């Protein structure tokens, strides 16, 4: 190994510590040999050997960097230097579990609004094609820890650290280091236990893939696939070099495949609790050992996170205190933020309760010192000090693979110790020194003498001797004092005590007939102080003083601070306003009586009828249905005068997704909305309040072939995966026209292929051709016999796989489209490739080629009456839906807007207004028709026996603009009703008041430390619409 630590570095190290004579395998010593003995005995302290075990007045013997013995009356060797640590507590040296190497690659993350072309990176033969995939990055290369940073860490009590790279999606492998003076001797393990990963991406205007969460997840999955394939490919090649071309060398894939083979762990840095679940899904798919660098939001989904069986490294980034000073500013604080302020300090305890193993990190804090402060708050609120200590010592030692060397105070372990002048986890104690590899690092920040108190001072000048009282008060290092004689006194100016216990002060001598400033200096030890001074005219003063009374803190400060208590709030699902404490019950039987039932099925509209639901499914619809009185928990609702419809379905939604567009490449079939579902999106609840129960959540329209969709039910409160309508056919978003040509994105976006509708056709044809050939290769490999065993297997490609599924008829295309030419074009392309388009979305000129759509069998999912926002919608007409339907196209109305999705019933009424569709037929535009389009009509879309009990109760005819949604049911569970909504809003406002009061009365609490806390709001989604390509 090449040990290339520069010369001056080494010299610095030797000067800084009194001896680091470690075993140096090859370095020649320079100058005189350095042979100070390194044998110590630490005496008199409370030794906490491991969490929960301690020895009062124990001794630790350290020899040559290792702990030789620990005990009460250890027979310590005569050659040891004795160090008295009476009154101190000694812990095993703390381990910083996630010390980030922070510098960023140039041209790395593009900031929002950066419209420049991505910087061309120098392509080297060994670099992976994607600059964010760099598992081959070696975190220690070219790296040095600055003294200042080391000191900061030591002051928190850390003696060793898990150093992690911090840039990219695959970031590289970690390393273990000591936090003594930085040198070759600091390295414990150059190849640490994990590879680091994160869902990193550029912003909307970054043009390098990926620029979205969607893309970063897809790239991560593809890279794992590639790594596995890479290993196979080389294995095959090595066995059959004559049958194969040599695979490309890819250092990144090589390293990843080795790490996977060795069952090494991957540590995902995740920004919120949902991201943790996303990481979990990837780990499950690729059978990875999962670690998480958490975020403080874990308490929101403790069960789901526990189920991941991951080791979690947690920051102590408690949120900033929300600004609630005026009622106006308080409006800007969400309940989720107010609640987080109250609950975040309990996160660690919640992890203990959920059985999640965790270690701690001070990374991600604005002020390092808040690490200790915050940890103490957590302990004050109920976290056992034992558990806190374990998360700094034994737990990380175990997971980081250094349990043989670190983590406890035990014979044979490395002498890394943290010495505190009290209990680290309580009060205002401080780390006074740490020991690292048997070397002492004192962290004296204050003089050990306290100058405060009343002193009788005798001072002599010019044969004159005075005896006056010196009254010193204030803080230990920020003193105030006055000189008192007889009935008079004068305030001292500039009284100081230095770290070496020297003191100085001066005062205006005028009232003592010494015109000018009198200066004193000297030193203090215990109750005695002495020194010299000068009178204003330069004559020598001799002085000494005796302490006559100790300093007394003002009684006010003595009052014990009220202990901070754990939050009494219960977690809501999802967290924040309108979250549920539990998922709504599913009653065994529901009977709704005397309603007008719009079945959207063959039975049409049934007046004065009853709907009977059993265990989430529709059992019967008819008149005079009855429930036996014996059924426990049966729900009977009299709905006289009310109307019931199927739950409404939105065939084009962007709600409930944390990421919408992977807009960098023209074809991104590999990205999946289901990877980024956001079950915390408040729009889910708002849409439920408008009778919506199912949504087709689509990728945006930034590229001709976009990402895969997710058909969800609006099961508010569930985890993201539970939103999915499980059996729904898979789909994918396509887009045509101005958005994919980037027509409305200004003069900077004129180079990506395609820039014309002609090019759009070609890129789609090209993609399908590639997919067909991909499939052929797969089939050949699978079908071929012995011959194919000698061949390198085809690589699984997520993008081509999705496209091949379209060709197989297993994936529905939902294509954003406006003009008739492009609509017809895609119909013909699909026909040429032998598949059927699922739906044309928006399809504003569908009315011009309706017969082609009908013949092809594509559905039309349109806006009712949007037009005028860009040139390609110049011919959009509100009669579009009705005309398509009349010509034989299965037609639905969609929202493409989380706002409009709340009132799809009145959108349906526009089919009556524009084109005179019957009321029954119009409602179908938002019920059975979209269900048919999405291939989910077996379960939803109409009220028929055996289907899911997804229905809405309306105050009147649902097509009336005056109708109000009163209840919304999904799977026979009541997810929305007006009565509960009223209760929830009362809860929301009560809770706001309570928390605001709590914030206002708890001024003494330290401000928060969340980096950039004011701006990044992880749980809010930006409202998105396909129109966004135009209006920004």
């Amino acid at each position, binding site marked *: 190994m090449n040990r290339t630590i520069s010369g001056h570095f080494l010299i610095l190290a030797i000067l800084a510590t009194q001896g680091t004579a470690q075993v140096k395998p090859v370095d020649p010593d320079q100058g005189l040999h350095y042979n100070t003995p390194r044998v110590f005995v630490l005496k008199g302290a409370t030794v906490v050997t491991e969490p929960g075990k301690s020895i009062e007045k124990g001794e630790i013997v350290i020899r040559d960097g290792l702990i030789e013995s620990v005990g009460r009356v250890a027979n310590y060797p005569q050659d040891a230097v004795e160090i008295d640590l009476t009154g101190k507590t000694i812990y095993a040296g703390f381990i910083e579990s996630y010390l980030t190497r922070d510098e960023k690659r140039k041209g790395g993350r593009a900031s*929002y609004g950066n419209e420049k072309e991505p910087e061309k990176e120098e392509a080297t033969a060994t670099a992976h094609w994607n600059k964010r995939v760099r598992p081959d990055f070696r975190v220690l290369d070219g790296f040095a820890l600055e003294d200042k940073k080391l000191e900061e860490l030591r002051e928190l009590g850390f003696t060793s650290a898990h150093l992690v790279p911090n840039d990219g999606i695959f970031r590289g492998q970690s390393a273990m280091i000591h936090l003594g003076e930085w040198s070759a001797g600091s390295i414990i393990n150059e190849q640490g236990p994990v590879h680091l990963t994160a869902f990193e991406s550029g912003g909307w205007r970054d043009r390098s893939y990926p620029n979205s969460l969607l893309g970063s997840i897809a790239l991560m999955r593809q890279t794992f696939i590639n790594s596995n394939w890479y290993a196979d490919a080389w294995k095959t090649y090595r066995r059959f070099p004559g049958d194969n071309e040599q695979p490309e060398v890819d250092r990144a894939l090589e390293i990843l495949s080795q790490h996977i083979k060795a069952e090494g762990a991957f540590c995902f840095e995740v920004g919120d609790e949902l991201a943790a679940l996303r990481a979990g899904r990837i780990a499950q798919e690729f059978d990875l050992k999962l670690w998480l660098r958490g975020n403080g939001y874990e308490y929101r989904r403790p069960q789901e996170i526990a189920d991941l069986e991951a080791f979690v490294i947690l920051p102590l980034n408690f949120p900033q205190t929300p600004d609630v000073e005026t009622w106006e500013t308080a*409006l800007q604080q969400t309940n989720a933020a107010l609640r987080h302020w109250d609950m975040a300090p309990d996160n660690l305890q919640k992890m203990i309760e959920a059985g999640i193993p965790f270690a701690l990190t001070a990374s991600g804090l604005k002020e390092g010192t808040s690490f200790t402060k915050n940890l103490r708050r957590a302990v004050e609120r109920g976290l056992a000090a034992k558990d806190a200590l374990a998360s700094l010592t034994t737990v990380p030692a175990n997971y980081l693979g250094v349990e043989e060397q670190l983590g406890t105070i035990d014979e044979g372990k490395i002498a890394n110790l943290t010495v505190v002048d009290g209990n680290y986890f309580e009060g205002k104690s401080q780390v006074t020194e740490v020991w690292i590899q048997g070397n002492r690092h004192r962290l004296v920040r204050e003089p050990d003498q306290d100058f405060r108190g009343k002193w009788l001072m005798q001072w002599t000048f010019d044969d004159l001797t005075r005896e006056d009282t010196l009254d010193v008060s204030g803080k230990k290092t920020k003193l105030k004092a006055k000189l008192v004689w007889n009935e008079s006194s004068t305030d001292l100016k500039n009284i100081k005590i230095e770290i070496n216990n020297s003191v100085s002060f001066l005062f205006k001598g005028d009232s003592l007939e010494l015109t000018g400033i009198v200066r004193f200096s000297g030193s203090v030890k215990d109750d005695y102080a002495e020194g010299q001074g000068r009178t204003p005219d330069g004559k020598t003063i001799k002085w000494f003083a005796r302490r006559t009374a100790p300093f007394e803190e003002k009684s006010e400060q003595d009052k014990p601070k009220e202990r901070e208590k754990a939050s009494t709030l219960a977690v809501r699902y999802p967290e924040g*306003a309108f979250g549920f404490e539990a998922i709504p019950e599913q009653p065994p039987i529901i009977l709704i009586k005397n309603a007008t039932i719009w079945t959207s099925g063959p039975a049409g509209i049934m007046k004065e009828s009853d709907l009977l639901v059993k265990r989430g499914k529709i059992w019967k619809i008819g008149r005079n249905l009855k429930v036996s009185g014996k059924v426990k928990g049966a729900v009977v609702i009299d709905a006289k005068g009310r109307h019931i419809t199927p739950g409404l379905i939105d065939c084009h939604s962007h709600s409930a997704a944390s990421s919408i567009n992977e807009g960098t490449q023209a074809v991104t079939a590999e990205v999946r909305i289901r990877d980024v579902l956001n079950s915390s999106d408040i729009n889910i609840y708002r849409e439920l309040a408008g009778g919506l129960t199912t949504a087709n959540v689509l990728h945006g329209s930034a590229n001709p072939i976009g990402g895969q969709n997710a058909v969800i039910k609006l099961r508010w409160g569930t985890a993201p995966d539970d939103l999915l309508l499980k059996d729904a056919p898979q789909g994918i978003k396509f887009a045509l026209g*101005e958005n994919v040509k980037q027509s409305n994105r200004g003069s900077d976006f004129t180079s990506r292929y395609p820039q014309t509708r002609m090019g759009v056709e070609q890129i789609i044809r090209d993609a399908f051709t590639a997919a067909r050939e991909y499939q052929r290769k797969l089939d050949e490999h699978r079908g071929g016999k012995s011959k194919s065993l000698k061949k390198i297997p085809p690589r699984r490609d997520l993008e081509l796989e999705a496209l091949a599924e379209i060709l197989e008829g297993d994936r529905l295309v939902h294509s954003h489209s406006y003009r008739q030419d492009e609509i017809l074009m895609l119909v013909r392309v699909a026909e040429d490739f032998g598949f059927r388009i699922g739906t044309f979305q928006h399809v504003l000129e569908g009315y011009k080629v309706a017969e082609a759509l009908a013949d092809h069998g594509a559905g039309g999912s349109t806006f009712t009456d949007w037009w005028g926002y*860009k040139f390609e919608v110049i011919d959009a007409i509100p009669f579009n839906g009705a*005309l398509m339907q009349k010509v034989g196209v299965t037609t639905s109305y969609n929202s493409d807007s989380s706002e409009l999705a709340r009132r799809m019933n009145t959108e349906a*009424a526009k089919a009556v207004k524009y084109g005179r569709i019957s009321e029954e037929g119009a409602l179908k535009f938002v019920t059975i028709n979209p269900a048919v389009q999405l291939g989910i009509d077996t379960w939803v879309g109409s009220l028929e026996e055996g289907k899911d009990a997804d229905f809405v109760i309306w105050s009147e005819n649902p097509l009336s603009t005056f109708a109000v949604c009163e209840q919304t049911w999904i799977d026979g569970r009541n997810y929305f009703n007006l009565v509960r909504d009223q209760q929830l809003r009362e809860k929301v406002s009560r809770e706001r008041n309570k928390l605001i009061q709590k914030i206002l009365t708890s001024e003494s609490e330290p401000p928060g430390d969340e980096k950039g806390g004011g701006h990044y*709001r992880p749980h809010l989604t930006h409202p998105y619409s396909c129109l966004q390509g135009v209006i920004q």
Partner: protein
Amino acid sequence: MNRLLRYMTIFLAAAVASDQIPAPPQTHPILLSNATIHPVTSKVIKRGDILFEKGVITAMGRRIGILPDNTETIDLAGKHIYPGLIAATTTMGLMEVGAVRATLDYSESGTVNPNVRAEVSYNPDSELIPVTRSNGITIIHTTPMGGLISGTSAAMMLDGWTWESATLKAPVAMHLNWPRMTGGAYPYFTQSDEELKKQREERLKILEKVFEEAKGYLEASNAYERGDGPAMDTDMRWESMMPVLRREVPVFVHADEVQQIEGAVEWSRRMGIDITIVGGDDAWRVADLLARYNIAVIYDGIHSLPSRRWEDYDVHFTAPLKLYKAGVKFCIATSTSQFAAPHQRNIPYQAATAAAYGLPREEALKAVTLHVAEILGIDDRVGSLEMGKDATLIITDGDPLDIRTQVHQVFIQGKKIDMSDRHKVLYEKYKEKYRQLGKIK
């Protein structure tokens, strides 16, 4: 019944016309007879008559006995008559296609543009106009946008050969965009609190300065008029501010968030300037303040999501009811954004949502007719059906606030309006395609 059929054929014929032709002035008296009349300012008249001559309503009641010579009588059995609806704020007329920059004329460059006038750029041949008119919107308040002071707006009738003949009133108001006072709760709101504060203070400073300088200009100009001062050079901007300072033209302050509204109210009191709030998302939160100082609100947020995650899902649906209960004068508009310009035809449905969530229906109707006229200062002419007011009215087969209702005919100042529009034309064109293919009858 025959009559009705004939009537239907007339406007169907109109619908297939290739373009919409502005109507000539009313040439003879017209009696709309036997309809349910909703005057808004008085009780509904069942089987009532309404007579208008030269564009003005001359009689209205259960039965108008004596008719002038040459009166054309139209029997409207089963039909309803309402005052023409008014769009309270929109960029319509100043734009055509949102994404095509060449068609946009609503936002002048720079921060302070009090001198630009909306009416002179109103394009009477915009395709947006007939589409909007077809659904009963007869008048729009065309509003410039952008900067701090955007210019003056105008009330335009949706018929006319030129912008001059279409103008009902100009200027209606000077438009001021109150600076953003607080960070939005959006993940991509990237401005830091400090940046925001800086920008806010800068803007407020400009606002102070603009009015100070304009006042100085007014005083100098007054002095000159009185002969107390020298002749002065003209400043277009301050010249255009003089009617505002003389309180002849009100200031419409675009403000949504509570601190913006409070700031605007304080400013108006300090400056002695009459204001109306446009936008008003949070207006209901300070309804008492607005009621106390008699400040009206053009509320444009009904069909928008709550701006804060924790707010009630219906916070914007119920805002009009809260304003009504607090005694605040308000009307209902669609969003002021350019995206909403082509969608002014949906204004009545915003009012309907307010009604669905508690606002009395007659108040909802007023919020898109009479109250808009009052707030724009055109209620002497339009906004209700009354003797002496313009015969600007619509004939429907039901409540115009209900989507299923069809608007059969529009009259603007007694002129019978061509009911065709681009959408109907294209509809008829492609129906013909499918008739040819035998797909529909």
